């Protein structure tokens, strides 16, 4: 399986040509929303290039906020967020968009334009790398087209390229979203609860896709997740968040049930696990 992928990479001759994996560093980051909600409090993290990290916590623990400070969708109130060469927390406008162009992200609700084709949705990943007039005319460059199609192929849904995104199943939609992020040729991949809207077999498939992206491309992957078994099974390092503070940072496989109870702030319940790979 992995061999055939390697062969394909060799045959295509180009896969993430200039995408080096990036380091992520949060330095004493706090985020307070306008309403006064303190979503993150004094979070410091350092994630090395090529790491596969899960961020675990209950809803409301600050996972979504944390991951969004990394691409600047949420601004930090204090501290700084650095990704590769970019100090994200200080960037604005064009420089911020340029940096975001190298940070892929997938979402719980897939966030596709449902009435647009899979192809057009994938090309969204080329926004930061292509001039506005090409978007206006709807004519991507041959290179952008090639990158988008290869991204779709790498997640196995190239045959759906001309379908309407809304006509796909949940698992297929998330694959399109992954292809959209991959077509950015990213240096970091962020995933905000990527499997929370999927059934268990599909959830495992999507997690395996992320694992493969990490292994094959050496991409730094950061996954928000609330299920303990998925975190243990697919990620190497785990960061536990509770009430906006880091309460665990260490090996995912070695995390004990007691560690999870500390992260959740309550005893473990059946719904904290997804179940075995189907």
């Amino acid at each position, binding site marked *: 399986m992995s061999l055939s992928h390697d062969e394909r990479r060799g045959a295509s001759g180009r896969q993430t040509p200039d995408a080096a994996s990036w380091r992520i560093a949060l330095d004493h980051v706090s985020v307070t929303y306008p309403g006064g909600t303190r979503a993150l409090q004094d979070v410091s993290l350092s994630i090395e290039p090529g790491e596969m990290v899960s961020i675990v916590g209950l809803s409301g623990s600050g996972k979504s906020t944390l991951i969004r400070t990394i*691409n600047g*969708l949420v601004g930090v109130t204090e501290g700084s967020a650095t990704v590769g060469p970019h100090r994200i927390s200080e960037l604005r406008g064009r420089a*911020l*968009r*340029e*940096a*975001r*162009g*190298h*940070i*892929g*992200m997938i*979402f719980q*609700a897939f*966030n*596709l*334009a*449902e*009435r*647009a084709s899979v192809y*057009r*949705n994938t*090309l*969204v*990943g080329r*926004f*930061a790398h292509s001039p*506005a007039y090409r*978007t*206006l005319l*709807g004519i991507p460059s041959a290179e952008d087209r090639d990158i988008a199609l290869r991204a779709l192929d790498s997640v196995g849904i190239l045959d759906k390229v001309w379908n309407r995104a809304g006509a796909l199943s949940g698992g297929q939609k998330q694959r399109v*979203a992954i292809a*959209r*992020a991959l077509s*950015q040729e990213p240096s970091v991949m*962020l995933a905000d609860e990527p499997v929370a809207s999927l059934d268990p077999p599909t959830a495992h498939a999507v997690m395996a896709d992320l694992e493969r992206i990490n292994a094959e491309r050496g991409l730094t992957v950061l996954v928000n997740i609330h299920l303990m078994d998925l975190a243990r099974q697919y990620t190497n390092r785990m960061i536990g968040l509770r009430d906006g503070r880091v309460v665990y940072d260490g090996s995912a496989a070695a995390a004990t049930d007691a560690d999870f109870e500390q992260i959740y702030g309550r005893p473990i319940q059946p719904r904290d696990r997804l179940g075995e790979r189907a």
Partner: protein
Amino acid sequence: MSATPRAASGAPEAPAIRRELEVPPKPRNTLRTVLIAVAVAAFTVATCLPAIGGIELDLASIVQHWRNGVTKLVQLAQPNFAFLPRTWAPLLETVQMALVGAVAAALCSIPLTLWAAAPTNPNRFTRGLVRTINNVNRAVPDLVFATVLVAMVGVGALPGVITLFLFNIGIVVKLVSEAIDAADHRYMEAGRAAGGTQFQINRATALPQAWPLFANQWLYALELNVRISAILGIVGAGGIGRLLDERRGFYAYSDVSIIILEILVVVIAIEVLSNLLRRRLV
């Protein structure tokens, strides 16, 4: 406990398991309904009392003047089909005006609508500007636009087309931008996360999402245009309305009747056509 197999076998004991359901009492608002009905009735009566500033409805005048109308109605009931050939050219002009106005408005409505909707234009100032100008546009009655434009650009189809254009812009921009405001826009976060500009996000994702909304209103605008352009001729803005006004001026109500019938046929035809298109598009 094992109710399911018994029910499946249709055993006589099955009904014994049925128990009375405890349906919560249905809330009744009889008093409120009566009060609202009384209030509406009282308000309606009050608006018809001139003594307290209401409108004056003199029903007695119907009895006095109904004969005047009867001759006209009798003429209207006898459409003059011989007049038909003279109406072809103006009718065609009306349909052309309707189409040109609708298409021009459709093209211009795209950027204006995206400007007027909050998700596609986060800039409060420019959004407010577009909306305010459009509200002013909508506040001006079509006949006023047509009258002023006839004075500005002369009698003919042009003032009619411009009037329809402005009228259509008013409808489409308002209705579609409000529909965009109300829709779900999670795909925008993805576009932003990928480093896209608002322009790119709008063009590549918001616009495809909004196509059905646009198509609906464009077709509706076309329908309205045929009706309205029939009237615009009265103030000299081209189309069949000019002929209608002329025949009415000559008291030739049989001719007026055939023109009204023609407009009716065209309006229905366009309605049928746009319904077909709408089903395809939406």
